[in-house]
Structure formats: structure tokens, C-alpha cells
């Protein structure tokens, strides 16, 4: 039988603030266990939380980038539950007054996935099970998180993946998180139910917890939808429960409940004052937001005329896009700049992280100088690539590698005599061209380039050669 997938995603994202949400401890990843801790983030008696204003600011950035309404009045709540990784036996979170509400993410298809809410909260510590003992590392306790809750608008595994991928991209772009799913700085919980097409009612849903890669999101949705469909087809009913996706077997199985407390006894945290956010502050944050990746992509394709694939590769990484745009500002042409970035610079960057970091040793201006030489045909593409290589290795400017005399290069007389040499040395190619095999002319170009170290103006050379061949 055919079912419609109804899926919503809750995403936890660790914010890249320097310090934790309620104390001055560092948020740095790793570190010896329990070295990034203090009385506050280990819940020592008598300690009190101080809300980090940067966290509020970062959450507002996320809200604005996801088209949310920002609540100007908000407060923190306590979510009470007992677990050894939670040192106060409550998590400071937000319950009925989240910072942001009612946003959306637009998929490539134009479909919008609603964002119900974004709230701020603290992360818990980490349990490490070893040699029959359980150890607790509180380094992560108090690291700021935002939880982004989507509407159940997602109706396929592909949409689920695209939603998460777009979310990740936007969050990285606005600089509030590195969103590394492997390291846990972005974690997704998928809620999923099935219903018959056209049925206005929702089916019973399950929640798949802590999925840690984009492709697993897609696979988990598929696996869970199949599992539920099988049950429904067999006349069974779905049990509302928490599931875990096992990547090894590509299957979804119920998780052992860690705590049978679904009553969190939320109440406003008396230690943290209600807070108000100035409209001015919101506008200031809005003004500081960068152009988002999809707006860039659209602009690169529509206004700059880049092919979509290239535009996508460049707009995907904020630093790359900024470098690209800096190069254009330096007077370089769109096409050459884009091709050199994607073709040459990216060939040094094997991972997403490297592209994300885009740690190049030259500035956009230095790069623009090189591209301009190519644009003005003072060098050809091969030389541009080779020079760029050297520039990237040394961090030095183009004039270190290409001297003015090189560019002044070949006089018309010299070029003419070179062409003559090429013509004389390649009778077969000449004959081939004359017989309609036009590509054979490349043999003569190669001869000339080799002799000149690539410095010859190939268009001029072509004109001269064709004249000699009598084929112009």
C-alpha cells in the first residue's frame, strides 16, 4: 500500500561561542576529561548560572537566517530529569517562550519546510563506559546549544536530507556553529509517521534519536518508513517510541529508555531573570548577517552567468564565496576566477572541512592580479594554473613568478617567425588541416607554446598560422 511520509526534524546545534552558556569555561572540543569545568557547569552546591549574551545573539542570528520571528521577551526554564551526565538534575532550557518562532527553510523545489521554534539550552556531560565502570566527562556540560524544531512538513527521505543539509549550510554561513555531525556539534532527531494519501489525520509517530550524518538521515527515514509501512500493511499498529538508527545494518530499532520520566516538570528558572531583546539589537544582528548561500547561488547563476554546478561549489562555502567576490571586486572576470578556484585551488582541498576553512596563502587581491593577466590574455590558462600553484605554495604575488619582460614577451616579428617554424616543422599537421581535420592545428599551437614557455598569444598565432596554411 502507498503511504505518505509525515516527518519533522529536531536539530541540536552546538554554538561556537568561546565560553559556555552559563559560565566562563571554554567550549573547546576535546581536552582532558573534566578540565573545562567549574562550580557552575558541574552543578556544585551554591553555584549560579549567568546567561552568556553571545548565546542569545547567536540564536537570534539563527532565527533571522531561518526567517523566524524573534520574541523580544523570553526566559529560561528548568527541565527536570535525573541522569548522571546532567549535574544539576535539570537542564536549563526554554519551554513556553522560545527565542525564535515561525520560520522556514526553502528547498530547491521551492517547497518551504516550516520552522516551529528555536530555543537555547545547555548541553549535558558525556558518559564513558570502560572496563565495567562508567566515567563522566563534564567538559561538554554547559556548552550552548540551540534546538531547531521543524514542522512536520517533510514528506520524503530526500527532503529530510535536503532540509538538514540546507540547515547545516546556513548555520555555518552565519558563523554560529561548525555543524560537524561526526563530532556531535550538529545532531538530528527525526520524527516520522505514515498516513494514507489525503488523510488529514496524523498517524502514530516514532522518534529516531541522534542521527549523526546527512546520508544516515536519508537512510533512516527510508528504513523507518518501510518498517512502519510493513507493520501497517500487516494490519498492525505503530507504537510511539524512541528509536535508534543502526548504520551497520541500515535498520531502525527501539532504544532502551534511559529514563521513564516524560514529565519534566518545567518551570521558569528563578536564577535567571526574564530578558528583553531590543528591536534595535535585532536589526543590528539582521544587518550583520551575510548574504545566504542560496541567495548567492541564485545571484551567481542569474546575474553573473555562472553555470549552476560551479556556482553551487563556490556559494557552498562562505569563505570561498567571499574570496571569489573579493576577486571580482579586484577586477577579475567571473568565468576565469570561478574556474581557477574550482579547478586549481579546490584540487588542494580534499575534505569539506578544508574547503570550509579555505586556508589559502594568497589574498583575493593577489588572486585577482593573476586572473586579470589571464583575462587580458597576457598569459594563457596553463600558465595561470602553474603560477597559481606556485603562489598558493609560497603566498607570494604574481610578479614573483611572471616578470614584466615575460609579459611583454613575444613581438609580432618573433611570433611570425615562430609560426613559420611551426608550419615548416609540421607538414603532416598542415596537410591534415587542409584536409578538414581542423583539430590538427593544435599540434602547431603546442610547438609554439613549448618554444615560448606558454607566453605566446595563441589567437594571434592562430591567425598567422591559418594565413600560412591558406585556410583563414
Amino acid at each position, binding site marked *: 500500500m502507498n503511504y505518505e511520509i509525515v516527518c519533522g526534524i529536531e536539530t541540536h546545534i552546538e554554538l561556537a561561542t568561546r565560553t559556555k552558556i552559563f559560565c566562563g569555561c571554554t567550549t573547546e572540543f576535546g581536552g582532558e576529561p573534566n578540565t573545562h569545568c567549574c*562550580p557552575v557547569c*558541574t*552543578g*556544585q*552546591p*551554591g*553555584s*549560579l*548560572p*549567568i*546567561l552568556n549574551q553571545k548565546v542569545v545573539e547567536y540564536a537570534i542570528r539563527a532565527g533571522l537566517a531561518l526567517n523566524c520571528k524573534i520574541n523580544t521577551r523570553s526566559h529560561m526554564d*528548568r527541565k*527536570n530529569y*535525573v541522569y*548522571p551526565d546532567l*549535574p*544539576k*538534575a*535539570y537542564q536549563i532550557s526554554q519551554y513556553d517562550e522560545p527565542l525564535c518562532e515561525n520560520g522556514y527553510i526553502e528547498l530547491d523545489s521551492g517547497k518551504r519546510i516550516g520552522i516551529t521554534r528555536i530555543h537555547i539550552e545547555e548541553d549535558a556531560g558525556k558518559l564513558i563506559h570502560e572496563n565495567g565502570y*562508567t566515567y*563522566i566527562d563534564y567538559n561538554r556540560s554547559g556548552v550552548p546549544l540551540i534546538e531547531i524544531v521543524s514542522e512536520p512538513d517533510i514528506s520524503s527521505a530526500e527532503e529530510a536530507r535536503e532540509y538538514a543539509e540546507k540547515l547545516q549550510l546556513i548555520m555555518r554561513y552565519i558563523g554560529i556553529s561548525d555543524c560537524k555531525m561526526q563530532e556531535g556539534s550538529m545532531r538530528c532527531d527525526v520524527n516520522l509517521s505514515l498516513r494514507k494519501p489525503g488523510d488529514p489525520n496524523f498517524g502514530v509517530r516514532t522518534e529516531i534519536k541522534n542521527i549523526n550524518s546527512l546520508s544516515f538521515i536519508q537512510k533512516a527515514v527510508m528504513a523507518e518508513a518501510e518498517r512502519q509501512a510493513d507493520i501497517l500493511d500487516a494490519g498492525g499498529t505503530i507504537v510511539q517510541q524512541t528509536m535508534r538508527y543502526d548504520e551497520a545494518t541500515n535498520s531502525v530499532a527501539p532504544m532502551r529508555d534511559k529514563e521513564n520520566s516524560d*514529565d519534566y*516538570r*518545567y*518551570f521558569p528558572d*528563578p*536564577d*535567571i*531573570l526574564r530578558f528583553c531583546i531590543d528591536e534595535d539589537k535585532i536589526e543590528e544582528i539582521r544587518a550583520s548577517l551575510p548574504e545566504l548561500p542560496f541567495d548567492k547561488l541564485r545571484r551567481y547563476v542569474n546575474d553573473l552567468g555562472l553555470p549552476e554546478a560551479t556556482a553551487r561549489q563556490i556559494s557552498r562555502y562562505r569563505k570561498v564565496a567571499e574570496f571569489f567576490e573579493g576577486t571580482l571586486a579586484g577586477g577579475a572576470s567571473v568565468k576565469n576566477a570561478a574556474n581557477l578556484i574550482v579547478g586549481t585551488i579546490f584540487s588542494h582541498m580534499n575534505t569539506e572541512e578544508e574547503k570550509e576553512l579555505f586556508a589559502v596563502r594568497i589574498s583575493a587581491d593577489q588572486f585577482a592580479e593573476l586572473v586579470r593577466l589571464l583575462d587580458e590574455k597576457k598569459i594563457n590558462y596553463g600558465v595561470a594554473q602553474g603560477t597559481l600553484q606556485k603562489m598558493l605554495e609560497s603566498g607570494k604575488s604574481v610578479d614573483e613568478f611572471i616578470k614584466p619582460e615575460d609579459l611583454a614577451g613575444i613581438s609580432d616579428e618573433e611570433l611570425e617567425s615562430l609560426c613559420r617554424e611551426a608550419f615548416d616543422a609540421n607538414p603532416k599537421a598542415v596537410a591534415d588541416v587542409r584536409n578538414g581535420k581542423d583539430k590538427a592545428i593544435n599540434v602547431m599551437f603546442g610547438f609554439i607554446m613549448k618554444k615560448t614557455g606558454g607566453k605566446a598569444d595563441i589567437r594571434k598565432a592562430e591567425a598567422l598560422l591559418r594565413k600560412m596554411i591558406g585556410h583563414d
Partner: protein
Amino acid sequence: MKARIPELAKRLRSREISAVELTKAYIEAIEKLNPTLNAYVHLTFDTALEAAEQADQRLKEDDAPLLCGIPMALKDNICTDGLPTTCCSRILKDFRPYYDATAWEKLKALGAVLLGKTNMDEFAMGSTSETSCYGAPLNPRNTNYVTGGSSGGSAAAVCANLAVYSLGSDTGGSIRQPASFCGVVGLKPTYGAVSRYGLIAYGSSLDQIGPLANSVKDAAIVFDAIKGGDKRDQTSVDYDYGSSLAECLDRDVKGVRIGVAEEFFDGINPEIKAKIEDAIKLLERNGAVVENLRFPALKIALPVYYIIACAEASSNLGRYDGIRYGHRASSYTSIDDMIVKTRNEGFGDEVKRRIMLGTYVLSSGYYDAYYKKACLIREEINREFDAVFEKCDVLIAPTAPNTAFPLNYRGSGPVEMYLSDICTVPVNIAGVPAISVPCGEDARGLPIGMQIIGRRFGEATVLQVAHFYEQSAGKVLGDYEGGAGI
């Protein structure tokens, strides 16, 4: 004769006595009396003597602070770096924090000499200090009676002259009521006036640290020293009181409008009522204007207090699970089992009762009927206080409806004990300041306290009226013999 801070400060500066000698005198008195009174539960004599030596060095300079070299005590729920801080609970037995409470840090920086940590109701939950895991402190004025609570040890230590002053904490009357029972002065400052950092939480929106002392002036001096905003406590306020409150006490009460609300006198022991009325008459004779007011929300304040305090407590006390600090059950089968056993062994009955009550009022299905409603009524109580303080400058009421209970008195059960907080809890609910000053004693010679309540950050007026009363009333209590002979 009990020593007062200004007089001791003078004697320390004139070298009539050194801080070490003064400290030794208190140590001697504690060693003599504490085995009976049980006012202190942890003694810190070694560090006290070191602090006294340093104070003596500092007292050679002209600008040594007033509190330099003065021996004092802290309630056992105020964190002291490296020294026991147990809330008089088995669950925190042997707990030594590695940080100081802000209030203590401030006093320490002024050269205060800490003699020890004082007895209290377990986690400050109680009105007699009898829920302490170390056993109850005894009322120095009559050891057959309780000290009151929860800051009973702090009141007893000051009363018996085993400390010049002490700090307590007040969530629903825990400074004022024991001050009243022991015949000392106790000030509950405005919520936010003193940092709560390092005060082990009971009811976070109600808790406030304050001084207990043998005079209003001493209480004012200590309040001056501990007040102020703290970047480690978001609920603290850096209120500008203008100047030192202790230096502005000498005002008369001409034209001061004193509010008297009959609800505060309903069901009050007649002996107490009479003494408070005498005190009000004295103020009136000296030019104060009495305004008769109504305070209808008083009766509802008590359930509101117990709902809010217990709700917050149930959350605040969740952290005592035996994992990071404090008591841990010795045998268990799993982490869950360990937590359950630890808490079962570690907490006393009253604490368990309040945790259960608080858990219940926050549970889904009951939240709206209890916790949420209590919060709404809290706002109504705030409005009533606002209305009252439009008509008067201070409100005068008994501190407690009764004098000290006999030891082990249980009455008809916990609710009767809760009822004895009726006069003090509205003050915490509204976060306003109030002081308890002795105003006489009952037929058995047990002290009676008068409560003077002010508007938010109105400590100056509260202290001025209290000081004026104390100075004009003269001797209202019988002499207390004992304590440090200095």
C-alpha cells in the same frame, strides 16, 4: 555585657586587646558552651587564629576596615573554600566546597575572623533547627527551648556571645524568627541586595543572606559589608543606597508613617500582641504616625510560600545524587539504585516531605492548579505590598505568632509548624526587607521579636526605625550571662 562591633573595633585599634586575644576569648567560650548549646557544627579555630594574626598586622594600619579582626560565624549553608559546608544534612557530610560564597568572600577580604559554621535545619527547611543531622541547637536563654530556625545556630551563637555577629539565610523567616526566639537582631535584606552566589539553594526566588547581631547598628555594619551586585548572581542588584547605612541610623521617627495591618495580629499570642502594641505606642509618642491598614492576602501567603519554596527546592535538591560530592550509598546494583539509596539515606524526613510536595505541585496535571496559581497570587501579594507602601513607610508586625517552642514540640504535625511562619513568609514572597528586633519577653522570660518591614531597597528606613526603637526602648530583655568574657 555583649560586645558590639564599634566598641570592639575601638579596643582593637587602641591595642587594648589584640584580634588574636579576642579570638581566643571566643574560642574559649565556644569550647565551654558549645557542647551544651550545639550552636556550631563545624569549628574552624585554626584558620580563625591565622586570620586573627593577619588582622592584627592589618590593624596596625590606619585604614583597617571596621570588621577587621572581629570574630563571627556563618550558617552552614554558606560556602567556605576548603571548610565544611554541609547544610546540616547527611547527604553533604564531609562536603568542602572549593569556592567561597560572595558574602563570605567580602567579609574575609575585610579581615573577618570565622570561628565556625553554625547549626541549622537541614537545607534550611524548618522552624526550629531540629531537623539538623547534628541535632538541635538549644536556646541559650532557656535550654529547654528551641532556637527557632532555620538559622538557629547563627542566632544562638550571637545570643550566647559565641560570635560577635553571624550570617544566616532567610527563605520564609529563617533569620528573623530565630532572632526573635533568641532575643537578637536579624535582618532579611531585599531580595537581590546580597549576592546568593555560594548560598546553597533552598527556594531560589526567596532565599536571601542577612546578618544576625546583638544590635541594629551591628546588623547595619554587616549589611553594609555584604550588600551589592555580583556578576556571579544575575538576580543580585547593585542598588545605590547612597552611603553607609550604619552611619545614617541616628534619625528620629517624627512623621514616619507606620502601617499596622490587623491580619498580622490574628491568632497571635496575646503576650506578643501586647508587646508589639507597646512598641508601636512608643514610636507614636515619638512622632510616628500610625496608619491602620488591611492586608487580606496574608492568609493565602502561607500556601503560596510552601508551594513556591518546595517547587524550587525539589529542583534545587535534585543534584544530590552521590555522584560528584557528598554522601554516596555504600552498596548498590545500578546507577539508578545508587541515586535512590543515596538520597534515601542522605535526606531527613522534612527534606523528603518538601521534595515530594514540590515535585507534586510541578507535575503535569497539577502545575496549573498549584504552582502557576501560586505565582499569580504572588503577584497579587506584591501588589498589596505596593499599595501598603503608598500609605506608609514601614509595616510593623510580630515576627512570629509565638515565642520559642519547647524542644521536641510537634504540635498537631507539620502544618501547625508551617503556620508559625505566617508573619514572615509574605516578606520573602514580595522580596522586601524586614528586620526582627527584640521588644520584650513573655512570662517565661522567652524573647519576643518585632518585625519592621520596608519597601524594596528600603533597608535605610527599616534600620533607622529599628535603631530608634532599640535606643528608646532601653532594656527589653533580661540579662544573658555567659559567652566570651571580654
